[in-house]
């Protein structure tokens, strides 16, 4: 990523020592979030999410395909993320790099392992035909915290997806069957300060990152630590707590934005 001048680093650390952040937020606060669904008419579902200046578009396409031999009666989902050069002067065209792969895999696992999509309801003909759900994440504007923006955009897109049954002559379209979504919240640590929802500047000086997805019962549904720094056990506990708190608010906004 871009090299942040040492002077800016000092500035951010000094701010943090005084309990402040560049944009006036508290350590545990998210930036302003906007969620807009139905933004791409060709997609079966879509959502654009802004977290501060970060902007992510997630689009859902569905098709009919063969199930995996070991799960002959469940639908198939795949997640791809592209750090397209549109979004940052530092992203390059070409095959996905480690960063994009980790992003896609974390979002994918967040959806897959939480069984958000009821894939067992996506069987059309056992062993022959099942619905396939393609989640494609497009980063439009990168100003920090892609994990949460990508995850939230994908949730909003999936929760407003219509199964295009009519196009395949399988009756009327109907909403994609979805369970309760886990909400992903990401924190980073630098100079022994832990902050929620890092801006790009904060990401650039971050030593270690932790993403925690929690559900409405305050249970933990996924975690991913990143970067070469380390956390103490105590810091992890605090991050989990802050993730649950922010998760609650974001969940409310998500439901409101999709009209539920």
């Amino acid at each position, binding site marked *: 990523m871009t090299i942040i001048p040492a002077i800016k680093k000092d500035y951010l650390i000094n701010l943090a020592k005084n309990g402040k952040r560049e944009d006036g937020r508290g350590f545990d606060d998210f930036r302003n979030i906007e969620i807009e669904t139905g*933004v*791409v*008419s*060709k*997609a079966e579902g*879509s959502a654009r999410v802004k977290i501060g*200046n970060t*902007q992510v*578009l997630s*689009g*859902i*396409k569905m*098709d009919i395909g063969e199930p995996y031999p070991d799960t002959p009666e469940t639908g198939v989902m795949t997640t*791809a993320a*592209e750090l*397209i*050069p*549109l*979004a*940052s*002067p530092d992203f390059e*065209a070409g*095959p996905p790099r480690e960063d994009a792969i980790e992003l896609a895999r974390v979002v994918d696992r967040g959806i897959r392992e939480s069984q958000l999509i009821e894939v067992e309801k996506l069987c059309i003909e056992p062993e022959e035909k099942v619905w396939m759900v*393609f989640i*494609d994440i*497009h980063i*439009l*504007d*990168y*100003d920090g915290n892609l994990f949460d923006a990508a995850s939230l955009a994908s949730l909003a897109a999936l929760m407003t997806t219509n199964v295009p049954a009519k*196009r395949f002559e399988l009756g009327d379209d109907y909403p994609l069957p979805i369970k309760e979504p886990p909400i992903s919240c990401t924190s980073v640590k630098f100079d022994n300060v832990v902050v929620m929802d890092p801006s790009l500047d904060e990401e650039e000086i971050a030593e270690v990152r932790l993403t925690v997805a929690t559900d409405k019962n305050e249970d933990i549904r996924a975690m991913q630590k990143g970067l070469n720094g380390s956390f103490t056990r105590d810091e992890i506990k605090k991050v989990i707590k802050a993730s649950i708190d922010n998760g609650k608010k974001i969940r409310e906004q998500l439901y409101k934005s999709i009209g539920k």
Partner: protein
Amino acid sequence: MKSETKLFENGKRLDGRMPDELRKIKIKAGVLHRAEGSCYLEWGGNKVMVAVYGPREAIPRHTQNPLRAIVTARYNMAAFSVDDRKRPGPDRRSREISKVISEALENVILVEKFPRATIDVNIEVLDAEAGTRCAGLTAAAVALVDAGIPMKDIPVACAAGKIEDQIVLDLGKDEDNYGSADLPIAISPRTGNILLLQMDGHLTQEEFDKAFDLALKGCYIISDLQKQAILEKYQTKIGVE
């Protein structure tokens, strides 16, 4: 391109347009935070986002031109922008479109001012109907202005085509599939010089002239929309709006 579907009814086209009528076009400049210049454009069912970066040093070095900047347009369709999901990454079609758009933009940019540099124009098609290359080039031009890249002119693109033996402006989706010719052009509006020109299908020389005139007319209408979008951005910036 076959003519099986009925594309006209009572002299009007399937979407209610007259033969010489454009689809609805909406242009907004300066919509992204990171990009040095950006533009969001809706053109009928097309939705296109463009971001411009540069001029900056071309890397790797062997791609540098010691006398001028290189202009690299990258036209990309989002996987979800079409009916059947498109595999991510460039295909032959998108690489050809990237090439012809790069060439058209290079013509108007003052590339001699920035030796060894690259100017990157990233065009993302988020929703695709017919005519994405014209939409992409038109939006790219606005994003370049927004980025402050010095240019001789603001290029603009539009297509005309033939459906049921009639020459019409700006083919829509079904018209593109069932029409019998498509002629996208891009021009430099100040000089009328032709920067992009492709033709597929079947046109007599007369029809070609007619289609060309119509496409030109479309270009000039859209050129005004481009300028308006740039003005709006500028006014917003200085607080006039």
